[in-house]
């Protein structure tokens, strides 16, 4: 029986983890390597590193860091942020990433998904979509959720999967940061439309939100969150124990 995955997401800028991390027991709380190792120890099933650097120098630093993380953390690593070309795929895969997540890059050039899937396999290509309701319709936003592309989200995600994306991350802008739970209706609509793994993102505020997610959507594959893990509001090891107690299959 395949287990449900718990995935912490780390935003990295100029080689450092940003978004105030508040950890005792770590000598360097903004070191992606130390945090990655910590999460892996706690039972994270996968790590997402999101590069929010804009500069060329920052990108180079990111790949250096990624190389170091991959040499020390032996769970799957997904990398996103600034992926616009096949060369970008190549750059991060060479450093030990297992999957590459594309967002704005695919909106600008949908062919990127096709090309990447052909070259590296579907399993390697993750489509990440920032979705928000506008007048009751799910719309895809680009540029970190700032710009409405006007595209209807479910058909966009479906199209990405048809082009070869092997996994989908759905970030609900509506629930993101609210900490009131995952966006069940939005996720449900995506699950109905595609048959590849779907990862829920945006809205987790407590351990119970994950229980609700997996109970209401038995076919969802993973829950992703950032701040609640970074601020230790939710400890991954405790979360997995609670899920298991609720008969949700997890890797303990």
């Amino acid at each position: 029986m395949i287990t449900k995955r718990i995935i912490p997401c780390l935003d990295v800028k100029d080689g450092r983890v940003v978004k105030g991390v508040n950890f005792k027991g770590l000598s360097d709380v903004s070191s992606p390597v130390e945090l990655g190792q910590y999460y892996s120890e706690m039972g994270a099933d996968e790590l997402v590193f999101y590069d929010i650097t804009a500069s060329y120098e920052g990108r180079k630093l990111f790949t250096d860091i990624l190389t170091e993380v991959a040499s020390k953390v032996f769970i799957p690593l997904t990398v996103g942020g600034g992926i616009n070309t096949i060369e970008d795929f190549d750059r991060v895969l060479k450093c030990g990433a297992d999957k590459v997540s594309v967002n704005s890059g695919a909106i600008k050039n949908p062919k990127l998904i096709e090309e990447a899937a052909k070259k590296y396999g579907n399993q390697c290509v993750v489509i990440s979509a920032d979705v928000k309701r506008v007048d009751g319709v799910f719309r895809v936003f680009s540029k970190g959720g700032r710009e409405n592309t006007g595209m209807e989200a479910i058909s966009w995600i479906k199209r990405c999967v048809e082009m070869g994306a092997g996994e989908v991350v759905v970030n609900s802008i509506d629930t993101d940061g609210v900490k009131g739970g995952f966006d069940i209706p939005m996720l449900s609509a995506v699950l109905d439309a595609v048959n590849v793994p779907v990862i829920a993102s945006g809205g987790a505020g407590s351990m119970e939100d994950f229980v609700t997610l997996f109970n209401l959507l038995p076919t969802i594959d993973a829950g992703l969150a950032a701040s609640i893990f970074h601020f230790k509001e939710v400890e991954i090891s405790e979360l997995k124990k609670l899920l298991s107690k609720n008969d949700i299959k997890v890797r303990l």
Partner: protein
Amino acid sequence: MIAIIDYGVGNMYSLKCSLESQGIESVMTRDRETILNADKIILPGVGAFKDAAKNLRESGLDKVVIEAAKSGKPLMGICLGMQLLFEKSYEYGECEGLGLIKGSIVPLEGKIPPSYKIPHIGWNALSFKGEKSPIFKYLNENDCVYFVHSYYGVDCAESTIATCEYAIEVTAAVQKGNVFGCQFHPEKSGKVGLSILKAFDEYIPEGGETL
């Protein structure tokens, strides 16, 4: 020293690092002498069967790997590397493998209910078959390992040492004498995976057990 066969597919960096973390020396190579002189061999691989099989054949590495395996050298295929050990694959048409493990590689599609997603991605629990294989000596039944694949091995019951459940029983690992194969990625399976690599490094083939 473990020789990791470098035949131009996939990323071997994580594999090399994971071995290093266990104090196991390894070298990525396509050199015949280096491979034949190594203590053990790992055949990695991600991507499509046909391309990988073609790369192996064109570089002549197929013969080297077969020669080493037949001489009794322990060999482990990982993911696509495991699939290549089989006789043939039906990924995008029929294609021959190395034939070290009896059986063939077929798509999951059509074999599992449509509600089950393809690729099979994620952590799944191992269930051992037959006598516990030496590469699992540090493992317990139901330990989870990380899978990413859309094709799987069939008609290989006699060499299957572990399966996982994904609507059907999916071949997770095989062994025939000194030849091992893991459909999952030990180098991405945390502590459990690392302990499999360690056990493989410690494995000494018994006389008469080789291919």
